[in-house]
């Protein structure tokens, strides 16, 4: 009973935020002279209109879920890891290079490529963790800076040493990965690939890890109160490194999934231009770092994005309405409207009762 009540109370906030977001979107639609209901209907169709669009939405959510999970874990441990983008890029790059140059049967290379992606993302992330732990360099800032370095490094690698010289050779990208190595599509002719299953499994695993295991418990306590964790025997530096590795590894996995499941090569700029990492951060914020919630929020954000694409295809309302809604709802989700509102009501009631 109490649990249900607390879960409900936890939901007030996001629901209110979503409402405010939709309201802001409605204003934007009205500004450009659209019909709010029709436009939202088109948006709904674009995201969930039929099975095809639904899988589209899930496909887009895949990297967002994974990047978001990574960020969520870091947040849980108390570290503001803003480096998902760079970690994702290096993960994607490493996965592509492994997939291209490692000999062996397809399934084996595919797994190796995923592992390589996870490792690259993890190492890049733990590097920032190390700078913080060892030299006291603020993690929030270093991870931001490391993003730029990763972006340019990835760009260099595919513009020069590993550039695709086959075909028109006009893009900064690696050659196409052999078909045997691809992550399989889940349905013929649709974008959704096995990466989505990996993402959902990852969400469940991370939930299980943080909520059920000893290490997850230690990580969460570290994030809640580092002194308390230290007092209870948690090794802060070790747990920080661990959570940063997993966090970056998940972002790397997100990049690897996009490379092996959607693009079949590493294409310069393709991961950053889609803002997967930032959407992942938003999903985490929406879900207050809960792993399963992050997955749900990621699907919601992906739906907003694919819905906005559908809306733009079929109405004159520009796509950006989607990002306005997204931004407004994250803006308000951490605001304590719901809570303080409820509390004030409660207080009034009890005052009335006692006076």
């Amino acid at each position, binding site marked *: 009973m109490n649990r249900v009540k607390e879960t409900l109370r936890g939901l007030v906030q996001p629901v209110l935020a979503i409402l405010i977001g939709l309201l802001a979107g409605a204003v934007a639609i009205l500004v450009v002279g659209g019909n709010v209901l029709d436009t939202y209907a088109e948006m709904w169709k674009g995201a969930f209109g039929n099975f095809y669009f639904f899988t589209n939405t899930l496909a887009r959510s895949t990297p967002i879920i994974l990047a978001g999970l990574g960020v969520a874990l870091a947040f849980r441990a108390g570290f503001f890891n803003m480096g998902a983008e760079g970690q994702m890029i290096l993960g994607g790059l490493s996965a592509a290079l492994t997939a291209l140059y490692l000999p062996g049967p397809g399934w084996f290379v595919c797994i190796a490529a995923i592992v390589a992606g996870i490792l690259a993302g993890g190492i890049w992330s733990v590097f920032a963790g190390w700078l913080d732990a060892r030299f006291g360099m603020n993690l929030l800032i270093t991870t931001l800076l490391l993003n730029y370095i990763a972006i340019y490094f990835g760009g260099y690698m595919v513009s020069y040493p590993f*550039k695709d010289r086959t075909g028109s050779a006009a893009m900064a990208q690696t050659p196409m990965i052999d078909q045997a190595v691809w992550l399989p599509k889940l349905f013929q*002719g649709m974008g959704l690939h096995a990466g989505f299953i990996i993402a959902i499994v990852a969400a469940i695993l991370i939930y299980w890890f943080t909520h059920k295991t000893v290490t997850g418990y230690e990580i969460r306590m570290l994030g809640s109160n580092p002194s308390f964790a230290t007092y209870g025997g948690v090794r802060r530096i070790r747990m920080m490194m661990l959570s940063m590795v997993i966090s970056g590894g998940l972002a790397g996995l997100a990049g690897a999934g996009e490379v092996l499941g959607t693009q079949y090569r590493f294409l310069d700029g393709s991961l950053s231009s889609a803002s997967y990492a930032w959407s992942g951060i938003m999903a985490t914020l929406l879900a207050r770092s809960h792993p399963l919630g992050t997955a749900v929020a990621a699907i919601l954000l992906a739906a907003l994005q694919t819905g906005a694409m559908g809306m733009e295809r079929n109405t004159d309302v520009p796509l950006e309405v989607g990002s306005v809604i997204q931004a407004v709802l994250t803006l308000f989700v951490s605001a304590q409207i719901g809570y303080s509102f409820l509390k004030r009501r409660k207080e009034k009631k009890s005052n009335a009762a006692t006076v």
Partner: protein
Amino acid sequence: SKDEQSAQGGESEKSLRMALVLPEKIGVNPFFVQMDEGFKKAGEEFKVDTKTIESTDPAAFEQNLRAAVAENYDLIITATFQAEDALKKVAAENPDKSFAIVDTTVDLPNVRSVGFREYEGAYLLGAAAGLSTKTDKVGMIAAMDVPLIKKYTEGFKAGLESVNPDAEFLVNYVGGFNDVAKAKELALVQFGKGADFIAGASAVGDLGVFEAAKEKGFYTSGQDTDRTVEDPEHIVLSQLKSTDTVAYQTVKDFVEGNFQAGAVNYGLKEDGVGLTFVTRDSESALSDFVGQEVIDKVKAINEDIVSGKIVVKDPLQQ
């Protein structure tokens, strides 16, 4: 079934529906702007329902392309190298659909590919610059250090060297397609180093280059459409690329039943690329900086390329 529905829902005669699915936002990129214009113009002329769909990133593009298939357009046109991967997948999965792609080649039985040889136009521009420069220093502000852009930088360089081997060629990269402030800053730097002609090849960034030219009084050139009209005093040349013609022609061919798969290639010879004043006249007056004499020389070079006497190397085929 959806096909039938739309057929029934239309007028008595079934009107064709075509989609132009672009891998980027149109923005102020003249390449896409023109193409969209040509596409829409053909749509009006031939009574075709046209729909232009823009995309924000590669994954979104693939989704849009698939959505266009799902929404059952009769012909789907797309463009640029960025569309290549996705089109290969989607077109192969939908062999009964017709596709066209502009600016690159996709070798599939249901895809018509239209390519350009921009480096030929760039060669002419480079030659014109080499003949016009007074300081023997010319520059180019390119968008990014990526292979695609080499079609511009390398062609330009070859043209420059062919007429003026002493000229120094400065090239700087903005590192993006939208950073006008940085493009301008780079142009100012090249001007500071003594360049009197600085070509813009940085997409939106060109606006920054033009502004720098206006401010400092050097000469510059634009891309794709005749940009000289914007500021004839400083934007003295423009390298042309007729994406509008190509889009128009593709729609026309489809309506008239002449649509064939396979690759077509547009260069100077086919009038798909060119240079203002040389291959095409301009509304604006020719700047004294270039002068008719230079134009005449470049016209001669153009003829040599058209006739095959000069072969401009494709920088991507090294």
